């Protein structure tokens, strides 16, 4: 009987602490796995694993980061290799100041908010994020979408702080290049020769 009580207590605690993070986990899972089925599976697996290891969780510490660590880990081990990004090959080709060089003197450097926000849509950004190679996408989503700090991302994804920073940096450059290409393709801005 005591055992059963302890069990019910564990379940109650887990539901109260962990379940409120489901929406956040799901939206990140969707950006990582890129489709609803895998994203749902990812969230479920993360919760199952978290529940099994609940006694390893230090109460009072950051449950949200802990859940993301578990989910990121499952993604790295089980989902990551499924798809290869077409961009993996030419990341190093992007010039550091590409965007600014392209835009110098145009309306975008004078009034970037208005020009960008009017013309780039949710789906464009979503596609650009999904085109990022897995390693870059992971840190980008944890930072841009979930607002985790560099140190938290390092803990979650098991990376050195410097690696987090450099991946975020490269990820940003690739994103910018894609959004710029998109804007050019749709005739919103003209490419400098």
């Amino acid at each position: 009987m005591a055992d059963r009580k302890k069990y019910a207590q564990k379940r109650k605690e887990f539901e109260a602490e962990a379940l409120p993070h489901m929406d956040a986990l799901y939206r990140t899972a969707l950006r990582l796995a890129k489709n609803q089925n895998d994203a749902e599976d990812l969230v479920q697996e993360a919760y199952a694993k978290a529940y099994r290891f609940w006694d390893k969780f230090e109460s009072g510490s950051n449950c949200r980061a802990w859940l993301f660590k578990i989910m990121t880990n499952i993604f790295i081990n089980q989902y990551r290799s499924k798809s290869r990004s077409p961009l993996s090959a030419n990341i190093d080709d992007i010039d550091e100041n590409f965007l600014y060089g392209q835009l110098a003197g145009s309306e975008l450097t004078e009034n970037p908010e208005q020009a960008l926000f009017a013309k780039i849509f949710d789906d464009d950004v979503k596609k650009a994020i999904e085109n990022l190679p897995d390693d870059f996408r992971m840190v980008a989503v944890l930072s841009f979408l979930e607002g985790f700090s560099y140190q938290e991302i390092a803990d979650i994804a098991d990376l050195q702080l410097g690696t987090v920073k450099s991946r975020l940096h490269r990820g940003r450059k690739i994103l910018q290049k894609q959004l710029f290409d998109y804007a050019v393709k749709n005739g919103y801005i003209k490419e400098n020769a």
Partner: protein
Amino acid sequence: MNCQEALDLLYDIIDKEASEIDAQEVQQHLDGCRDCFKIYRLESSIQALIQERLKNNDQPANTEVLKSRVISKLDAIDREENPGAPPRVYSLVAKVMVAVAAVVIIIGAVSLGSDYYRHVSLYVPFEEAHHELAGQPLPDDPPVSTYLGLDFSDIGARTGYALVSYSKESINDVEMAHFVYSNGNSSVSVFAVPKDDYPIPLDLAENSVTRNGIVYFEHHCRTCHLLFHQVDGAVIITASEQEDIDLFPFSPQEKVSVISLLLP
């Protein structure tokens, strides 16, 4: 601080990782340097755009279904790690919720067309109804078991399931009787509604199955299994999240048909 130093801190500033002292020095530099100011402005605009657009992007349309599936998973772990414990009432409730959510999705998909996302709000009355059920023991006496002149009490006896709850609920402003059957591990929901209030969804017409002379319309997907059919003046919707449960016997009409088959 010179331009290079200011630009080196660009992303630390944008990501709010820079120290207060660094941030102040960068600000001083930007106040006096138009070139760096433009780069900072462009980069932070793009960052704001990406963050905002990312957050706008699709939330799950079926949060409640996902939640119920997670809860089922936790139930399974509980049973596995603590085999002596009896099935808990709220695990039953979670399963009922899946079935209900599935029905809401089907009905919503038909009557709302592209307005798919309204399901979340349509779902609310059910959640409230089932919270009341949570934590209560299974009833000793079967609840109300007739509706629209049909008897729903005997269905369980033939399936190994027992009728555990009855409630009136409304889906899309259509009032339905909701019977829940359970065998302790899994549950089946049967909804009954006057046929004039609820036409069987047209898009299911292709998936008809005839059994014992009754035409059923079936929906089978990753998250649920549903049967629709008409009995006298009622439309009956039988629902379960589990694929391996035979839903056909959960029909008040099945009994009549079986008897009529026995007659010469």
